[in-house]
């Protein structure tokens, strides 16, 4: 006989931990950009392909988590934050993994070469973008502490500071993106046009990853507004 019980049925599964798990999975996916482009630059396409498999696996796992998360959030759940805000955070987080996979997929498929003069800047640009994601993860990881304080006091200030740092980091990425594009523009005449197009789009997409990470932070800010 298994009695169902009013007190235990009263508690739903808190969305916070799954959301954090999803974010950390997504960020570890984005982190693969660095080894991936390291392999691309050194022309080790076997290595790049291995890293890409890892990215795909991470992305699929994140997708599964996302579905699970959505299914465990019925409308009857009463939460200290709005269901819509949480779902939009989740959607943004998922976007990070999707874009990462898309970028790497195209680079791998076309066996794209990064021009030698751009390589150092390019790796620096990727590192900055990854750092943006990590900062977003750090902010998301504060969600349980936010809940603990009932979204008030020092903790809110702390999270706001984290979000400011995240915004600043994204601006750094922007700056690097402009610089990189300008340098590419200087040499674009020497590269086959189709390759140039794809280089521009790769740079754009990596910038989009940082943008999305910033949007995760912005959505989090919405939760702080009372």
């Amino acid at each position, binding site marked *: 006989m298994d009695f169902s*019980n009013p007190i*235990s*049925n009263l*508690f739903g599964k808190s969305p916070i931990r799954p959301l954090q798990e999803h974010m950390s999975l997504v960020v570890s996916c984005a982190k693969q950009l660095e080894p991936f482009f390291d392999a691309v630059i050194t022309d080790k396409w076997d290595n790049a392909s291995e890293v890409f498999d890892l990215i795909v696996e991470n992305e699929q796992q994140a997708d599964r988590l996302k579905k699970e998360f959505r299914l465990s959030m019925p409308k009857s759940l*009463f939460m*200290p934050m709005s269901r819509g805000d949480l779902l939009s955070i989740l959607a943004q987080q998922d976007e990070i993994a999707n874009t990462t996979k898309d970028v790497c997929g195209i680079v791998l498929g076309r066996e794209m070469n990064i021009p030698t003069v751009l390589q150092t800047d390019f790796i620096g640009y990727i590192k900055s973008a990854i750092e943006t994601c990590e900062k977003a993860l750090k902010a998301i990881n504060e969600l349980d502490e936010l809940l*603990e*304080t009932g979204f008030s006091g*020092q903790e809110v200030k702390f999270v706001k500071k984290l979000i400011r740092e995240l915004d600043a980091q994204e601006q750094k990425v922007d700056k690097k993106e402009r610089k990189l594009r300008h340098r590419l523009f200087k040499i674009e005449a020497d590269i086959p046009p189709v390759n140039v197009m794809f280089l521009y789009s790769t740079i754009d997409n990596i910038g989009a990853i940082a943008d999305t990470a910033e949007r995760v932070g912005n959505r989090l800010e919405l939760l702080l507004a009372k």
Partner: protein
Amino acid sequence: MDLFSEYGTILIIMAAMFGLFMAWGVGANDVANAMGTSVGSKALTIKQAICIAMVFEFAGAYLAGGEVTSTIRKGIVDSDVFSDQPDLLVFGMLSALLAAGTWLLIASVMGWPVSTTHSIVGAIVGFAAVGVSNDAVNWDKVSTIVASWVVSPVMAGTISFAIFRSVQRLILIHDNPFERAKKYAPMYMFAVGFLMAMVTLLKGLKHVFKDVGITLSFGENALVAVGFGILVTMLGTYLLTKVERDVSKEEDNRFYNVEKVFAVLMIFTACSMAFAHGSNDVANAVGPLAAVVSVVNSGGDIAAKSSMPSWILLLGGAGIVFGLATYGYKVMGTIGRKITELTPSRGFAAELGAAATVVLASGTGLPISTTHTLVGAVLGVGLARGIGALNLRMVGAIFLSWVVTLPAGAALSIVFFFFFKGVFG
């Protein structure tokens, strides 16, 4: 009356068995509800929770349960109507016990969140209104009781909300929550000790004191309660000195050590919850039994002023302990595993709000549902943005169980009533 001299012993044995059955149900299911929050927030292990439950359930029933027992025993029915037909009261109380016990068993198997209190009140009203006559029910009292079922969860929610907000304001929003937690925790401990002592003195021990010839004024009672509160605070402060800050754990969760302080606090609220539950819910099993025993022993004299034999309370206590030991620990484990999201600071606020409400209700003799009150308290903490996710469907289920339990308890009770009347009458 012939009936009582002929069948008196059998009737008492039957009542005792039904009462034991009911107490077993309370121990198996209800106690776990009351203590589950402590286990879920990991403030107590299941073993510790059961030990606390055994001691404080019994203390609550014995020291502060008198008023509710007497409401169940003679407050719901109008004793004047039964004075020339005491046999009907005995059959009625027997059927009420059996009906409530049966309904609880059915509901538990089906997983409905019904309350022991609602079942027994519904059953008593049922046999009296339909089996005897409409006048046999003390409708004024019944409407007060029903109103208290609405008021108690709301009140518990309000208190818990306020307590949790005070925890936020005083402790959690500051830079040094650990020091502040240690500073303010004794204040909450005092509140727990004072409240329990005050209700016990004013309502429970009043009769004991009268017997030995001591009368205390309200002020003197308050003074004793303050003394008890200070005693509890001292014990708590001692326990708090043993809580050491483990800074390495704060990296992952900044409130790790603060929660350790609240876990100590929760030992006290768990005691108060068990005490409150004992003071209110044991009466559900013991009240009808007491009514039967008193009528049979006095040979049918309803009005006779008989004090409740202590074996009845013992039986109630034993039934609860038995229920806990055979099944309650399992339910407690299930609840504990399911509500891990509840941290000690939240669990403490919910328990204290619920315990305060139940103890106050017990003091005024109102039989309320501990489980529903606790649900109200948890929702109160949730409204203070304190709980990750609450399943509001449960509130609907509880409301539905209300609508079903009263007529179901009443209908079963009516059937059993005519059955007993046919067999013995």
